[in-house]
């Protein structure tokens, strides 16, 4: 009786935990990435996938075998892999005559492809080409996007969103300041997108904030944007839906104006003027067991004037 119309009841605690870890959650875990090799890949593409894997490491799966599939034509196999390895980000690398050294960056929502960007590698230097110290694994990188295209062009804007999603790592409440070691710099310029990766060297500047020097550690890519698949508006909107429980609660009587100044409205109860303390005088002192009308009335009068 454990199985009924495709409902599988987990038989062990361990499998139950596993299934729970894959259920939709209110606060989601970090998105995992899968790196897939296509039917034909060049040395450049293979190395690039390896490098992206090492940038993204604890949250990435590098597929070792070839998978003959074309993401822009048929997405079913990608969706299958996504379900299998519980990954919602993917990079698909391929190489052919028409599109040499091709990387397809994409993301999924509910195991369906949301958007995909095909980037051709024009110039590439791998992690190993730079002979210097790298950053420790799992470092949360700083992401910098430069170029007005990332703000004006719709496709670039979406690409920016995807790249932030891809490389941002875990969301954390606080960060060790000296641990900010890695910068990924994306520049949209001259019809290309330059991805550079630097190690941050904090130098003394004489004040509290350090002076920054950068040392390139690789990988470095010069990408050209090829084909693009954007999600339909309603699916994109659906994917951005925020749970009600996580929305910040509206606080009553607090407003902000255009400059960010905070305004509050207070509601006071009407003051009981009869209990107001006026100037103390010997003559007005309350005597025991004596409550006169004069005593009640006098402070009111004084205030109303």
């Amino acid at each position, binding site marked *: 009786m454990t199985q009924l*119309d495709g409902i599988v009841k987990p038989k062990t605690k361990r499998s139950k935990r596993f299934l729970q870890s894959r259920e939709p959650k209110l606060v989601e875990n970090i998105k995992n990435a899968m790196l897939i090799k296509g039917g034909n890949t060049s040395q450049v593409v293979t190395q690039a996938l390896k490098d992206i894997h090492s940038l993204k490491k604890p949250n990435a799966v590098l597929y070792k075998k070839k998978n003959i599939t074309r993401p822009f034509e048929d997405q079913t196999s990608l969706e299958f892999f996504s379900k299998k390895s519980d990954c919602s980000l993917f990079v698909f690398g391929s190489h052919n005559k028409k599109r040499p050294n091709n990387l397809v960056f994409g993301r999924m929502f509910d195991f369906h492809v949301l958007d995909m960007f095909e980037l051709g590698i024009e110039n590439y230097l791998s992690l190993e080409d730079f002979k210097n110290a790298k950053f420790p694994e799992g470092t949360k990188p700083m992401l910098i*996007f430069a170029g007005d295209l990332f703000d004006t062009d719709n496709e670039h804007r979406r690409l920016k*969103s995807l790249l932030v999603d891809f490389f941002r790592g875990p969301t954390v409440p606080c960060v060790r300041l000296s641990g900010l070691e890695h910068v990924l710099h994306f520049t949209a310029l*001259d019809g290309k997108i330059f991805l550079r990766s630097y190690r941050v060297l904090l130098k003394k500047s004489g004040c509290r904030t350090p002076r*920054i020097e950068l040392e390139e550690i690789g990988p470095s890519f010069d990408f050209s944007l090829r084909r693009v698949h954007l999600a339909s508006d309603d699916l994109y909107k659906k994917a951005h839906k925020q749970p009600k429980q996580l929305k910040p609660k509206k606080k009553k009587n607090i407003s902000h104006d255009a400059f960010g100044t905070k305004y509050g409205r207070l509601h006071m109860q009407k003051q009981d003027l009869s209990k107001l303390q006026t100037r103390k005088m010997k003559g007005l002192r309350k005597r025991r067991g004596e409550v006169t009308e004069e005593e009640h009335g006098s402070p009111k009068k004084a205030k109303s004037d």
Partner: protein
Amino acid sequence: MAACSIEDVLAKVEKDEAEILKNITVHKELELEFDIGNLAAFDKNPADVGLFRKHKKEEFLRSLARDNTQLLINEMWKLPTERVQEAVVAKLPEPHTRLPREKPLPKPRPPTKWEEFAKLKGIPKKKKTNLVWDDVHKEWRRRWGYKRAKDDTKDWLIEVPESADPNEDQFARRLKAKNERVAKNELNRLKNIARGQKVSVQVPPKDQSKAELGKAMQLARISTASVGKFQDKLPKEKPTRTVGKKRSFQPLIGDFNMEKQRQLDLLKVMENKKPRMNVTRAVNRQMREEDAEAARHKKEGRRGGKGGKKKGRGGGGKGRGGPKSKKHHGK
């Protein structure tokens, strides 16, 4: 002199400060946008393509990256910090770049049948305490589970009720009842799951064949209080083959002639059960047999001599005699 020196000192301090600040300040035409929660910065300034082409490409990109990183780091160092195990930790605000979710929002569990009913009737949920007073042991015990209060499985003696069969095992009866309750509960649980799933899948089956549709229509037609007797027919509707015929009976008293005829017909049918003789076939068969016999006699006569011959002729030979009394059952 003293005043002069103070001015000098102030000027020097100012100059020093300016120099220090020069180390870490970067001038940009448009200010950067930050999403500190994601450690991200967005530089909207259009990059200088001319400078990019003229300079060495890598140098240009590196200097751009340095400036932007410096700005981001400046912003990071403004955050409130605290010390956690000899490390200076900055508190990050919530990231404000909206990113799509990985999976859709978790759906609330569909209500069980009881919950639906309770809601309809306005029955509130009651929280039961974990511990209850056990009168036998004079102590607080768990309501359920191991060492529970009023545990009827631990009885060593059960009174046989008057109405019960004295030979029945009361322990076995209790155990059986318990098992049945458990099974019923499990069944209800599964039913609730099934019902919950059906709510989400409320799509009618898409492709029904013509025959299935016809059947469904036929069923719908006769599903009335009067079994579809007063249901209108469609124009040019064909009578369905699947529909059953109702038996109709003759009136008990009425036309006697017809009744007699019916009885006779019935008798005829019963007669039919007995095999009747087919006269032509029987005659033919008889003739064939006689012919065959005659032919045999002839043969014997040639072999045996005169006597045989004569005898054969006397026997009738090739006579066309009438049918004998011997009956052949026609088929």
